């Protein structure tokens, strides 16, 4: 089993701060720029990278990530290219964990076995597949764990204590707590409820718990990082990237637009428990 994720969470805990998990869409706005962003993320302060696998029908995503996926697909991004990008990133950076996040159909069409083999070869550490609940574990989760790739599961406000053990059963790497019932980029109604839920989940598992959906600024990162072992930021980065484009094309400021925001967020997580 890949151990980079566990090591990175442990290192952050040692520093007394939550990990910053950043989501960017592979191929957004074009494969070359996307690769530059990927390479620049660790330097800007990202502890763990979620690399989006674009899908034509992202049912759990809000407009920010939908648009990122559309830009990526329009630029010709495919799952093969995403894996190639991770491979080249891994050649430069042996430590930063990379988690692929997306939907099941592209993986299913790629072929689960060959996808896992290629993902292992590329140096992928984990997978988050939104539309694969525990009830469908045989599809990808069990084979992924057998191949040595972490399968990170989402838990949500609707996952009650009765269901939680089933959700946590085959989860590894970390637990991704979805801060609200909704789509990515929505508004969190109650900060206190999120903190309470994180503590509740931690009562059921030793895995690190990261909070995502709705975290946009360094202040948010500082607030939610108090209780959680990690904070995930995605929509805000996709929006920053989107607003740096001109006529849909990358500009000189595109990479910086993302890294500047990541630097701010990195300072936020460092303030969380200060």
């Amino acid at each position, binding site marked *: 089993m890949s151990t980079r994720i566990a090591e990175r969470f442990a290192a952050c805990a040692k520093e007394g701060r939550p990990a910053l998990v950043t989501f960017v869409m592979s191929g957004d706005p074009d494969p070359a720029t996307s690769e530059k962003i990927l390479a620049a993320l660790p330097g800007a302060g990202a502890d763990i990278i979620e690399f989006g696998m674009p*899908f034509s029908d992202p049912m759990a995503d809000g407009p920010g990530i939908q648009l990122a996926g559309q830009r990526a697909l329009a630029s010709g991004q495919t799952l093969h290219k995403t894996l190639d990008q991770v491979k080249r990133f891994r050649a430069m950076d042996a430590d930063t964990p990379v988690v692929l996040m997306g*939907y*099941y*159909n592209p*993986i299913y069409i790629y072929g689960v076995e060959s996808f896992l083999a290629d993902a292992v070869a590329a140096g992928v550490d984990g997978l988050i597949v939104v539309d694969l*609940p525990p*009830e469908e574990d045989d599809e990808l989760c069990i084979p992924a764990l057998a191949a040595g790739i972490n399968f990170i599961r989402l838990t949500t406000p*609707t*996952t009650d204590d009765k269901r939680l053990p089933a959700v946590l059963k085959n989860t590894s790497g970390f637990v991704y707590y979805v801060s609200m019932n909704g789509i990515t980029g929505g508004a969190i109604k109650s900060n206190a409820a999120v903190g309470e839920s994180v503590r509740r989940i931690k009562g059921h598992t030793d895995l690190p718990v990261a909070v995502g959906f709705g975290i946009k600024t360094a202040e948010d990162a500082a607030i939610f990082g108090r209780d959680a072992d990690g904070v995930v930021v995605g929509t805000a980065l996709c929006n920053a990237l989107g607003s740096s484009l001109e006529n849909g094309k990358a500009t000189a400021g595109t990479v910086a637009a993302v890294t500047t925001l990541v630097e701010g967020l990195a300072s936020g997580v460092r303030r969380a428990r200060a």
Partner: protein
Amino acid sequence: MIDDAIRPNSLRNGPDEQGRFGQFGGRFVAETLMPLILDLEKAYRAAQADPAYVEEVRFLGEHYTGRPSPLYFAERLTEHLGGAKVYFKREELNHTGSHKLNNCIGQILLAKRMGKTRIIAETGAGQHGVATATVCARFGLPCTIFMGATDVARQRPNVWRMKMLGAEVRAVTAGAGTLKDAMNEALRDWVTNVEDTYYLIGTAAGPHPYPEMVRDFQSVVGTEIKAQMLVAEGKLPDALVACVGGGSNAIGTFHPFLDDTSVKIYGAEAGGHGIDIENGHASSMTGGRPGVLHGNRTYLLQNGDGQILEGHSISPASTIRASARSTPSCTIAAALPTRRSPTRKRWPRSSFARGSRASFRRWKRRMAWRCCKRSRRPCARTRPLCCVSRVAAIRTWNRSASISGWRCNEYPYC
């Protein structure tokens, strides 16, 4: 007929406990929705076992929908085709004008049992939206309908009907603005309002138990056909034909006949520009392959990277599954139902996609040539295709196209 009880391997079994029909079906949804879907399954099982619920569905079917719908012997079409006796199952005579109400009644009663206070639904051409808006008005529940912006523009009359019934219609601009995108947006709304909202899916799609529920509620169509054919002909039909858009009409028609091996079953999909042309048709079963979308594994039109294609059909509801899935929308009890809108005697120009107009021109040229050829050697089968006026030609095209797979013959009512 062999007694069902002694038949060991019925094709009517399923789904299994995982909601699978063989490799198809399943529950491919985000975790937020899983607890709700498990609750829904429990509620449905409890309702099925409750005679009061079963009776209420039946009662409303009879007195509100107007069931049973007639099985009509289409004498002129039978004569024209010169072969089989053709019967139409007249689902368009139901209240709201389609088979969609059968399913909506069953599901809204379930939603009420579950204590849900808000209903959402997706719609392509608008028939399911109208049926949902109708049952919501009947039971006093607020209703939001998601409809692709492209479909909103080309299906105005149904949008008005939904609004008159008190529904909020949200035009979805994401993607191509058709049914697939409407369903994505409905799922996004559902995930956001999961506590109080019931998602009333109208097609044989979505996570388990939706395909099973839609099948069960629509099977009344096939069950009636069976009984009515026995009265009319004293035997089962030799063949069933239903168009395949999203799937509710076809599965409802076919399911009661699946174990009757003497009955041939035909599904007609929208052929668009031809099934060899990528993204140029809406034949997900003939020209697609299995994939996972909207909560279930089914036949999808998709590219080599697993991205879902929009597909092409001049019928909104066929593009539905064009893009997405693999089940149908209208019935011929031994033939095909031609259905025309009371509000639209002619096809509005706007409903012709540019490609479709081109297809039509090509078709007209081909037909003209066939007419010339036929004048030398008359052929009964193609006789009515001689028509020259544009309107008549379009009407004929509607019919012949339905047969040859050009379009869903229930347009614009799927």
